């Protein structure tokens, strides 16, 4: 279910490393918790993000949630499609629902993140 080539944070973001770039999104667990996503607020391209800094905001009908960057870097692209189709975060959270692409500052940031196996175990601890 959770792609094995991603890293995962305790805040339910995923990171996929491609060379010195990282693609970031929210996990399937996160989208289920949120419910129908109706609005996504994205940062401007060029924004410098520290580890755990707020990337933006995801809103469902009922809830407002901050999304945090699991790694540090500079925003080089944002998923503009989410402006018109925020529901992609629900339908394809690990693919078309990606949120931002970063130029990574320090690849070692991923060492503190979980693998898919670790994340699934982590979820077992929270899911009822």
């Amino acid at each position, binding site marked *: 279910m959770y792609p094995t080539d991603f890293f995962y944070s305790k805040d339910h973001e995923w990171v996929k490393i491609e060379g010195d770039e990282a693609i970031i999104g929210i996990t399937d667990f996160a989208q289920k918790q949120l*419910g*129908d996503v*109706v*609005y996504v*607020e994205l940062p401007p391209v060029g924004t410098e993000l520290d580890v755990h800094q707020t990337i933006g*905001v995801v*809103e*469902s*009908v*009922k809830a*407002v949630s901050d999304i945090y960057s699991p790694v540090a870097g500079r925003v080089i692209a944002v998923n503009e499609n989410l*402006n018109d189709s925020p529901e992609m975060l629900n339908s394809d959270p690990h693919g078309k629902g990606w949120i931002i692409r970063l130029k990574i500052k320090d690849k070692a940031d991923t060492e503190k993140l979980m693998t898919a196996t670790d994340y699934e175990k982590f979820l077992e601890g929270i899911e009822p």
Partner: protein
Amino acid sequence: MKRTRFYGCHQQLGGRMIEFFGWEMPVEFQGIIEEHLAVRQKAGLFDVSHMGEIIIQGKDALNFVQYLTPNDAGRLAVNQVQYTALTTPRGTFVDDLLVYCLAQDKFLLVVNAANSNKDYAWILSQKGSFDVEVDNASDRFSQLALQGPKAAEILQPLTDIDLGVMKPFWASWARVAGVEALVSRTGYTGEDGFEIYTLSPEPAVIWNEIIKRGEEFGLLPVGLGARDTLRLEAKLMLYGNDIDETTTVLEADLKWIIKFKKGDFLGKEALSKQLEEGLKRKIVGFEVVERGIPRPHYPVFVHGNKTGEVTSGTHSPFLKKSIGLTYLPIEYTEAGTEIEVGIRNRRVKGVVVPTPFYKRPDKIA
């Protein structure tokens, strides 16, 4: 946490449970948007057993209800229902509620879950020399709401009364799925529909039969999430958000529930005075015209000055717009007035619009 008698039904249907004023209630089943649209286009079934039920009966029941509430309960025939308020002497809300006339000397007050104990204490404190008995029957009642254009068609074969002759805001005792119940043509969604009250200790059969019968009509079970978005589109007030003990009935734009000529009632003097002097503020509906969703407590500005807060706000699943309610100084309440809503670190443009945001299309005979 308290559970309703339909808790098992919600578990079976995969309802996501949350705490709501001490109750463990489903917030959603399939998803808020899908449930919302089902109610607008087909039908939805809600467990609203958390609502409070208070019975006032006795020789002075009518007079006491008249004293507690601004609407004219004297106009109610037996089995008729009325939207009204429990008012403070300042003309503000202890609660908003439905009053059912069960008999000439017996009234059922259906109040908000969060307020049922407060209301009961309030009513007792106002009893004085009125010859009445007041019974907080909240724990004995279960309540369902079946709402949507297909509601009557779904319910009809399950009951022994003719729903075709039941007008809005009327009620009747009936058997529903074999269970004795009080059925009224009322609701909190802006759609046609029914609310079903029962004292049966095992009412799950009603839920199950409606779900089963409703399937072919596209009925969905609906949680509190869509209940909130549906009521907001229809501009129905939510106690604790839009109205409370600091807002008067007039400020809440509910003058129609005040019947000044009916005789004395709590808050009458304050409300007459406010009417005479002119309102200083009033609740209005607005739409956000830029990107962003207004949420309760976000600040509202007119001409750069803070005027108040969003009392209710959401993404409207049916209108696909961001909508909300706020109190504005009376000079800014006209439709078309431009406002701003503070959303995080931005101010987004909004405009005052006529309400309700959603009105159901007139039924074609």
